């Protein structure tokens, strides 16, 4: 092998590495530096302002509430959908295609779609009113109705982002060798036992990937919330946006950004640890 061909892979990778370094690593360090300095001197002032703000704790609470409900719901739904798809004798491609349509919709558009459904004179209220179930146009998305506001955001998020978990799990299921399941059948295992003892453990790597991806993205939820709730449902990324754009306090926005990175990293490490795959369990 010539020296040139040994270098080739690195040369081919170099542009993307440089690109990421310039547009991701450098800004990341600059953001960290910005969040810890005030007028050029090291300081925690931005973090103090962040934590002292009236929307800080609501944003933390709302973000965690969303992550803790949306992610398990999506994983359960996606697991169910993927398992159902496995059993289909025909038409799998069509159903796969339909179920993944939301993947192609931007999150802001998804938020607007659900806003159109749930708002005062939206499709849902009109339909319910026509059926005589409610009196007339109902306001479900105001600061006075936090419960229904949360449900609307939850529905939009589940509708929009379950497909990505689903895709990963479908790929994972296809990787599991048929022989394991056939062996289980021969030994008389019930479908439920097969699922619990064979499918689920062998699906762990895919579940891990899906959970990390979805959780990190759920901590960054913004456009859907912004479209449906505006400022009535503060979330972390939304607060970072408001501090950056409306309040023009870049340091506080940077503090929020760092906090989100830290939370996302912690969640990733948690999954890596809890769902780690022992070598003897690998297929």
């Amino acid at each position, binding site marked *: 092998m010539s020296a040139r061909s040994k270098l080739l892979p690195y040369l081919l990778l170099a542009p993307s590495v440089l690109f990421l370094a310039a547009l991701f690593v450098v800004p990341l360090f600059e953001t960290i530096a910005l969040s810890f300095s005030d007028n050029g001197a090291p300081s925690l002032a931005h973090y103090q302002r962040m934590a002292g703000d009236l929307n800080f704790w609501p944003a933390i609470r709302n973000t965690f509430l969303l992550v803790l409900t949306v992610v398990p719901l999506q994983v359960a739904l996606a697991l169910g959908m993927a398992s159902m798809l496995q059993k289909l004798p025909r038409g799998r491609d069509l159903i796969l295609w339909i179920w993944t349509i939301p993947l192609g919709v931007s999150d802001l558009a998804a938020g607007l779609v659900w806003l159109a459904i749930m708002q005062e004179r939206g499709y849902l209220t009109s339909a319910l009113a026509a059926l005589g179930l409610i009196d007339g146009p109902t306001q479900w998305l105001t600061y006075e109705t936090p419960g229904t506001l949360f449900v609307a955001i939850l529905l939009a998020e589940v509708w929009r982002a379950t497909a990505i978990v689903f895709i990963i799990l479908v790929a994972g299921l296809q990787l599991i060798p048929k022989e394991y399941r056939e062996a289980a059948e021969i030994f008389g295992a019930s479908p439920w036992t097969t699922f619990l003892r064979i499918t689920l453990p062998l699906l762990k790597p895919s579940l891990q990937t899906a959970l990390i991806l979805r959780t990190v993205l759920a901590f960054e939820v913004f456009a859907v919330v912004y479209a449906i709730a*505006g400022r009535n449902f503060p979330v972390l990324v939304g607060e970072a946006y408001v501090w950056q*754009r409306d309040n*023009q306090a870049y340091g506080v926005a940077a503090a929020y950004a760092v906090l989100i990175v830290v939370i996302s990293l912690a969640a990733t490490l948690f999954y890596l640890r809890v769902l780690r795959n022992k070598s003897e369990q690998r297929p």
Partner: protein
Amino acid sequence: MKMLTQIAAWASVGCVAALASAQQADAQQDVVFLSTQLRPIEEAQKVREVILKDFKGKVTYLVEEPSPFDVRVRAEGQAGKRTISLVGALHGELSALQPTGNLDSLDDVVAKLTDRGIPANLMELGKFGTGKQVYVPWMQATYIMVAKKEALQYLPAGANIDTLTYGHLEAWGKAMTDKTGKRLLGFPAGPKGLMPRFFEGYLYPSFTGGVVTPFRSPEAETMWTQFKSLWRYVNPNSTSYDFMQEPLMGGEVWVAFDHVARVKEALVQMPDDFVTFPAPAGPKGRGYMPVIAGLAVPKDAPNRAGAIALIEHLTRPETQITTAAEVGFFPIVKAQLPADLSPGIKLIASAVAKTQDAKDALPALLPVGLADKGGEFNKVYFDTFQRIVLRNEQPRTVLDAQAAALKGIMEATKAPCWAPDKPSQGACPVN
């Protein structure tokens, strides 16, 4: 592979060079005019096709939202590569740029504009207290109230729509709620709504006679208590409204407060359905906020002469009248608006005139000297509203806490008081 890389490299160098030379060639004839105002596509087209039509010379009219606008002007200055020759922005946006040294003095231009009849106090605003002219006033607007005609039957007895008080407004809202079962007052308290301006230019001046100094005064406490009581008749969707024209047109709201530009569509499309009138008055008068947009020339502008010619064009009485008729911003010069204005614009014009000419009018200027702390200043007022009105906290506790934040901003920027607060030596005090 090596050859490919070389080709790519040369191609990109070529592209950059071609772009740069195209820009240079353009700069010699074009006036690049960057504005934070008249941004919606229809308005920008009116500027390009109607307002700038008679200008001798070529203008590239570009629009930008306030935050990227600010970044762009500063960045061009830092890079030493200016492409913009004229900027048009609100007083507050220009006041944030002024201390950065990016704006050229326009003292020589003022001499050429003496026949325009721009009021001295407006011209003075364009100096930011520096003694030299930083911007020339371009056009003005303000905030008004709009009501659906159906709402008029519920006006409290004895109340004149043109001289409403906040007490009347509450009684009006209550009557509408009692009769229709709906909360039909509306305020633009959404993420991009201009609600903080309502507190700074209307509520605070009307009740306390100031904006900053009496922030935590007993009058302010009474004011918030009363406003909270009024809020019982305000549509809860208000915290999602950015522009009041849509809820007005949809009938979700019958009586609304907003900037003229943000109710214009409703008035232009359905002029027969609405009436317009000044914002209510409080114990200290009828607070109102004149909004001034100005024209400034960046330092080292590539076409300063062209920019000045454009300023002369835009401040001509006939251009100012066209501007009012086309986009609903009103003249800063003495100009008689024609009788054949569209009915919607006429509705705006009459409310603006009634506001300015009200006997108890109490003009409250846009904040001056806050530089890049304008956003945080607005936040103090909006947070106070959120905590007292939406989250039911005690007015006294909230006012004391928010006063500390306000004090911090005033001391950090050393901004002296602006009207209607009494002039101060150094930072405007928060008593």
